[in-house]
């Protein structure tokens, strides 16, 4: 044993020698512990004679040190008084024993209890660290989003009635108008359009007829009647299982698609599905509402739409939010063609073409993003549309819906810029009304619920059917 090792071991043992007031006990403790450590080291050294390199590692020294602690505690166990009262006195009031030595020995004494507590503490610490890092990241994102929002092209426009409506900046595609598209050919199982779009009818089905109101400010309606024509397009993701998009998976991919189509047909979930090969399937006929949007809100220059199943066409891409490649090339092309067809057929404004995640709300807690599909990454430009992530959602800007950290985390840690603009618009409106934002928010929530009820009534008038559950029937 080297001189340095002796010194290190002696220092450790010495700290614990202060437990003993009686000289003979202290002497016995020092002698026994150091002698045993020396003997142990000699044994280990001899055993590792052929593995000299191991002895040079720090791990080896650490291991021997741990062993020394074991010997120390063993000796303390033997030599300290057995009566628990006396032992407690020694451990509590022995001022000359270093505090760390007392704590470590106590931990050793209660090690059977300390181990599970330690493990639990470690687990809590790990969880807290994980949660803390996540929380910090979200807040940093929010901070950065707020810090740089002045540079965003957010347009939160207030119309004559004071309502916030969606307004595209149209920077990406200035002056773009969809060309006139017409039906070229109609066969038993498909339709072909002048822009090359081909819509398959194999899974076509019917549902109840559309029926909705358009609201202006407050409870005022844009017009008295219930409207029936589609006014916008909502893009969805199927969130179904994704196989690798390779040629050898053709058959399996098609099998998956077939399962999806049957499910969507059965539940009347969307008006259109675009599979991974870019084939467009009509499911619920255009004049009928599909169960795709549940509780949702959107607005344009005409007014506010509540519950978009009735007023918007649902177009679903067979894909998943977390997929590496969200859309295949074929899906992108088909999505653009279908958008052109629908916009042309129903004179749909660019402002009314958005995604499900941007319109979905949860009335139970008055928060946005109950569903998350396409809250980021939707290729608006490739669809010939302006970027709706830059638009203030009416749910936030008009009705004061909020969000929480959990939601931000679920959508990837960052809000889209439109939300920030919406919050700003809402707060400005509260200021102009000389109300606190919370007061205005309460008023708007009451109004939203009233509008929801009116929308239900409109649908009942149109179909004489009760509205299905507010939760979307997505779940593949």
């Amino acid at each position: 044993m080297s001189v340095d090792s002796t010194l290190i071991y002696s220092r450790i043992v010495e700290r614990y020698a202060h437990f003993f007031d009686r000289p003979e006990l202290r002497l016995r403790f020092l002698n026994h512990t150091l002698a045993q450590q020396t003997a142990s080291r000699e044994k280990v050294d001899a055993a590792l004679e052929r593995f000299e390199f191991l002895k040079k590692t720090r791990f080896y020294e650490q291991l021997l040190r741990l062993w020394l602690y074991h010997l120390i505690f063993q000796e303390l166990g033997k030599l300290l008084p057995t009566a628990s009262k006396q032992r407690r006195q020694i451990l509590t009031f022995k001022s000359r024993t270093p505090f760390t030595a007392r704590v470590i020995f106590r931990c050793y004494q209660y090690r059977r209890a300390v181990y599970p507590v330690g493990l639990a503490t470690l687990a809590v610490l790990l969880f807290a660290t994980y949660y803390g890092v996540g929380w910090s990241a979200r807040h940093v994102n929010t901070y950065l989003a707020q810090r740089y929002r002045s540079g965003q092209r957010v347009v939160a426009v207030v119309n004559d009635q004071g309502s916030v409506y969606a307004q595209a900046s149209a920077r990406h595609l200035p002056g773009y108008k969809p060309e006139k598209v017409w039906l070229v050919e109609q066969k038993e199982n498909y339709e072909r359009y002048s822009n090359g779009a081909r819509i398959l009818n194999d899974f076509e089905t019917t549902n109840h007829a559309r029926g909705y109101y358009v609201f202006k400010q407050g409870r005022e309606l844009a017009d008295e009647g219930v409207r029936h024509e589609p006014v916008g397009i909502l893009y969805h993701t199927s969130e179904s299982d994704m196989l690798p998009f390779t040629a050898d998976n053709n058959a399996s991919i098609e099998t998956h698609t077939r399962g999806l189509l049957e499910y969507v047909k059965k539940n009347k979930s969307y008006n259109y599905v675009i599979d991974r090969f870019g084939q467009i399937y009509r499911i619920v006929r255009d004049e009928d509402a599909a169960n795709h949007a549940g509780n949702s809100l959107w607005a344009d220059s005409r007014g506010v739409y509540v519950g978009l199943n009735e007023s918007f066409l649902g177009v679903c891409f067979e894909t998943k939010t977390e997929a590496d490649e969200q859309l295949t090339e074929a899906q992108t092309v088909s999505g653009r063609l279908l958008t052109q067809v629908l916009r042309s057929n129903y004179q749909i404004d660019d402002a009314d073409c958005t995604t499900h995640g941007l319109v979905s709300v949860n009335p139970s807690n008055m928060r946005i993003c109950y569903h998350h599909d396409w809250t980021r990454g939707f290729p608006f430009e490739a669809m010939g549309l302006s970027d709706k992530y830059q638009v203030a959602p009416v749910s936030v800007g008009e009705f004061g819906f909020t969000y929480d950290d959990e939601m931000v985390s679920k959508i990837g840690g960052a809000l889209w810029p439109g939300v920030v603009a919406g919050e700003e618009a809402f707060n400005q409106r509260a200021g102009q009304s000389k109300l606190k934002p919370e007061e205005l928010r309460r008023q708007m929530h009451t109004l939203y619920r009233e509008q929801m009820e009116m929308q239900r009534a409109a649908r009942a008038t149109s179909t004489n059917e009760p509205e299905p559950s507010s939760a979307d029937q997505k779940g593949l």
Partner: protein
Amino acid sequence: MEEKNQAPASKAETLSIKSSPVGLDIGTSRIVIADSPVNSDIRSQMNAFVAVPCSEMAENVLKQRGMVYERNCKNIYVYGNDTDFFASFLDTDARRPMHSGLLNPQEEMSQHIMQRIIQLLVPRAKRNEVLCFSVPGKGEGANGNLVYHEAVLKNFLQSLGYNAKAINEGQAVVFSELQDENFTGIGISFGGGMCNVSVSFMSMPMITFSVPKSGDYIDRNVVEVMGERNSTKVRLFKEENLDLSRQPKDDMTRAMHIFYEDVLQTLIERLRAEFKRSSQLPKVDRPMPIVLAGGTAKPAGFLQKFESMLRAGGEFPIEISDVRMAKDPLTTTANGCYIAAMSESK
């Protein structure tokens, strides 16, 4: 010895049976026993004897005074604490069973008398109790004798039923006085026959040695230079009147100063040399204390004299924290042996 008479019954019966560890300091001038943690229980006997030719008159005197003695056909031997009185009574020098810390080879009766003195103090063991006894460290020309000395004493103590273990005398000083330092420091015992030194680190003796100069050397040389007839007078003067912190007033005191300084100088030089020579010493990370013990260290001013001579010699090879005198210099070694025996006991 052809015929033996035991000491008077009253004293002989003090040999009861012992059932606890024992510490025994077997010094050139005194044998001290410690067998309890209470310092006042420590007992000692002079390690000396006086022999007088056998006569009925002398034996009657001894009997009347209740003295411890032994008789064979030629002589009567008075030993232990009665020796001084009887030596003064006969105006003769007491004889020593030990010389320079070891059994005295010149003294025919040394082993026998020492056994008798030890038996006065040490009762028989009950169940192989541990007994630690002091032995000197290695020194000039004493190495072979040391082995013999240790073996003889060990055999005798084992014959009394003990598990006998030898402890270096300097180390015993460390055990007795340096508990707070976890037995790290330098213990020096200034005995009658020699000075014993132990440099201890965490109870492990790193350096031990002895210097064959101490109280007897001082006495012998003072007697010689002063032309005295026997050393008892010199020894008594030294123990009762000497003050090393004051300037000497007479020739005897001056001579004592000179020989004390000689002893100390020899010891300090040897200590320096041992430190320089030793490669075994761990790098001690703190200053070490020095503790002085033994009868020769008793005179007033001894501590100051030692400290001043230590500092005067220039930088010491290790840092010294303080130099201190043992609480009770005469019983320190026995107490250290007792602590060692207790620590060895199960």
